[in-house]
């Protein structure tokens, strides 16, 4: 893999959400994303790291540049929390088991170009999102 930038950080505390936003912003800017796309990517990262913190307690975020015909940024959010019971339901706008707006997951899907969710009850959740540099 040609990695212009990559890295990872643990998500354990509330402040890690802020740190995650900073790291992702830096990566997206360095890859040449425009200000609106940077905001989209950072916002998505904020949603997914907060989900880790709120629902799984802790986890990890990884980021790396990707290059398949086009340059892009890939973010992976992994936790060993309770898992998502019904992914289809969780992707519905307004669905929440907490006290949120239930907009985090469906909103992230709209902000990014690609999104994959893998989750196993009792084992944990892995979410991978990607954004391509617009040409």
């Amino acid at each position, binding site marked *: *893999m*040609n990695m212009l930038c990559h890295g990872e950080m643990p998500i354990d505390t509330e402040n890690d959400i802020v740190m995650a936003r900073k790291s992702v912003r830096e990566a997206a800017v360095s890859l040449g994303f425009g200000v*609106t796309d940077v905001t989209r990517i950072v916002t998505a990262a904020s949603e997914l790291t907060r989900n880790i913190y709120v629902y799984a307690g802790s986890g990890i975020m990884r980021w790396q540049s990707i*290059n398949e*015909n086009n340059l892009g940024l890939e973010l992976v959010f992994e936790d060993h929390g309770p898992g998502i019971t019904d992914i289809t339901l969780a992707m519905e706008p307004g669905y929440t088991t907490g006290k949120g707006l239930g907009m985090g997951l469906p909103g992230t899907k709209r902000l990014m170009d690609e999104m994959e969710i893998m989750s196993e009850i009792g084992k944990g959740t892995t979410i991978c999102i990607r954004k391509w540099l*617009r*040409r």
Partner: protein
Amino acid sequence: MTTQSDAKSSSIMGSEESFRLLVDSVTDYAIIMLDPNGHIASWNAGAEKIFGYQYDEILGKHYSCFYSGESLSDGLLEKKLKLAAENGRFENEGWNRHKAGSRFWANTIISSLRDPLGNLIGFAIIARDFSERKSADYARSLIEASLDPLVTISPDGKITDVNGATESITGRSRTELIGTDFCEYFTVPEQAREGYQAVFRDGQVRDYPLELRNVDGRVFSVLYNASVYRDENGAVIGVFAAARDISERKLADEALKRATAYTRSLIEASLDPLVTIAPDGKITDVNGATESITGRSRSELIGTDFSEYFTDPEKARKGYQQVFREGMVRDYPLELRRANGRVTSVLYNASVYRDESGEVVGVFAAARDITERKLTEERIRQQSREILDLSTPVMQVWQGVVAVPLIGTLDSQRTQQFMERLLERIVETNSPVALVDIMGVPTIDTQTAQHLIETISAVRLLGAQVVLTGVRPAIAQTLVHLGIDLSGITTRSSLAAGLLVALDLLKLQVVRKSDNHLGD
């Protein structure tokens, strides 16, 4: 089969590649605006370079000056503009005229430009200079450089041109050959005729076997690869045929050593970077072109991992592994990293080669540098985007009011860009009101309507307000039929009515001058 003969056949593939490189080369483009009557209204540096005219001398001239006499006949020019006006876009390839009088081949895209009311306000032309691929001189030198016998044939089977290699394999001079029947130089003329007729019918033939008779009586087994070529109007005017002397290959089987030297020279003569790779991925041989594209010497390269010279070694590894598995790959894209750090985009064509017993011993790979082509495509895309941007200008029409006429079909990507620019301009100009005029939008679907509604919501978040104008009856009908709720959004049928709303929102009033006096 032997190692050498297979390596040789691949390198001949390389010379075809050279021809393709010539055909594909794109080096320039021009961007020109015309008024509705075809008079030049703007001119960029690319146009200056391609057509030779300075900005000042061309401005206001009719665009027919780009064409020479033949292309002007039959009202072709008027037809092009008419088609562009009707369909929004017209693309063609043909001869254009340089200021100096010389002709050059260009690809031209003419797009019509319309105002919010749908009136034609002009045309945008993007012309790409393809002269190199049509330039007789350049083509000639490449054809002559070829070690393969090359020949062009007219539809009636007459030879129209040959290269040096054809002269030596037939034992006849160029002047002797031109104008004679192609078929008569083969042991079975009928088979030769069927061959070129197949090309005219199918567009090409591959590895068509024939036996060529030299003037001294010697017979050469050859394989022909041929395809049609076309004139400026796209009509087929002949066949371009390349022969591969396989009797030479037979010879090579017997005289291994000699063939090795011959193969080596062929490989070295190739303009494309060639490399052979062992099953463990190590480079076993390279040619001069590979040395220059990697910026590393033969001795440095041989014995090292093929994959390490690419930005994505894993992908390079997968590529040659695929060749070992499937026998070949075509147009496999990779990015080669030069010693100086520069990256070159290449397409690889590769196939396996075998030893005397038929065992696969390695991969033979030929690269084609597509960087220049990529760059040119990128620049053209950039320029088209700028033209697109021009077609949705966000104008400040009053202190505190911006207006944007949306023209043409709104796809997701375009609406996205439009939304971002509108929002930025609202913030820049500190304008609480934005007039969005959709008079020039031909149709609206749910997706587009959704984007519009998103735009309107985003504008509201900024602290400004959208007034939607130019809602034509057809659009109003579609919106209602689609069940799209625009209530809560101020709409007006015309831009003028919208402006009044905007002024009202700003607590401004338009008063007739005389009324003013009366009031005094």
